[in-house]
């Protein structure tokens, strides 16, 4: 058996109440693979944010749709892929949020993508034939910021 890399997959309906299940899935399998707790905290949050974005924005709350998650654990890094068939994320419209400005404007959203970018070492978006995929990577070395 190949011990170098193992991929865990999960498919959930596009509903926010599934987010707890998604987080439990990430925690359970990352722990099982001996991933350090600081990385698990970061992965759990980044994956929650990405799935919540799919549910609320790509699928606009349609519970008939599905969110596909794959988490690959390698000796030096963890790779996450989250796939949907909804509206693609418009990267050109993205601006790094300012909490002070959002608070002043009484906005409740707009932080999720920033959290993912701060916690992950690499973030990529792909869109092909109606399938959107966000891929992100967290290296398993110690860090100076973004949950250490």
């Amino acid at each position, binding site marked *: 058996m190949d011990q170098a890399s193992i991929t865990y997959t999960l498919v959930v309906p596009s509903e926010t109440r599934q*987010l707890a299940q998604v987080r439990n899935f990430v925690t359970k399998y990352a722990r099982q693979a001996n991933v350090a707790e600081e990385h698990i905290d970061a992965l759990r949050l980044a994956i929650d944010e990405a799935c*919540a974005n799919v549910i609320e924005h790509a699928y606009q709350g349609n519970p008939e749709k599905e969110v596909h998650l794959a988490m690959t654990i390698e000796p030096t890094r963890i790779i996450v892929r989250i796939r949907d068939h909804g509206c693609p994320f418009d990267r050109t419209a993205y601006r790094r949020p300012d909490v002070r400005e959002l608070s002043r404007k009484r906005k*409740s959203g707009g932080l999720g993508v920033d959290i993912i970018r701060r916690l992950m070492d690499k973030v990529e978006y792909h869109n092909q034939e109606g399938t959107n995929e966000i891929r992100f990577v967290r290296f398993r070395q110690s860090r100076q910021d973004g949950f250490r």
Partner: protein
Amino acid sequence: MSNFSVAFRNADAATILAVCGELDAHTAPELESAIKKCRDEGKINLIINGHDLDYISSAGLGVFMAFIEEIRTLGGDIKICALRSKIFDVFDLLGFPKIYHIVETEEEALSLFERGIQPIPGD
């Protein structure tokens, strides 16, 4: 069933909202309703006690962003206390401690209200 709850307590200087469980995109509307209820009852000095908060995502942080300006304009504030270090790290990641009073204990938060310490300036 929801894995999040809010319990209300009244102190002389403020209303305390003790939050428990996991605050995410699914449960954030419950905190939003709790803050709205306080505001509608004229309770604008609010303390969020996060001692039993196990998890927070951006949807939870968003509830604070949605209300802080209105509550401060009314002359009150939302102060946050007793966060576990993992939860504080999420607030800290996005710079919340520069804009919100986040203190270690409920007593400290109450004392800020009692002494009339103004919210951290918006600029």
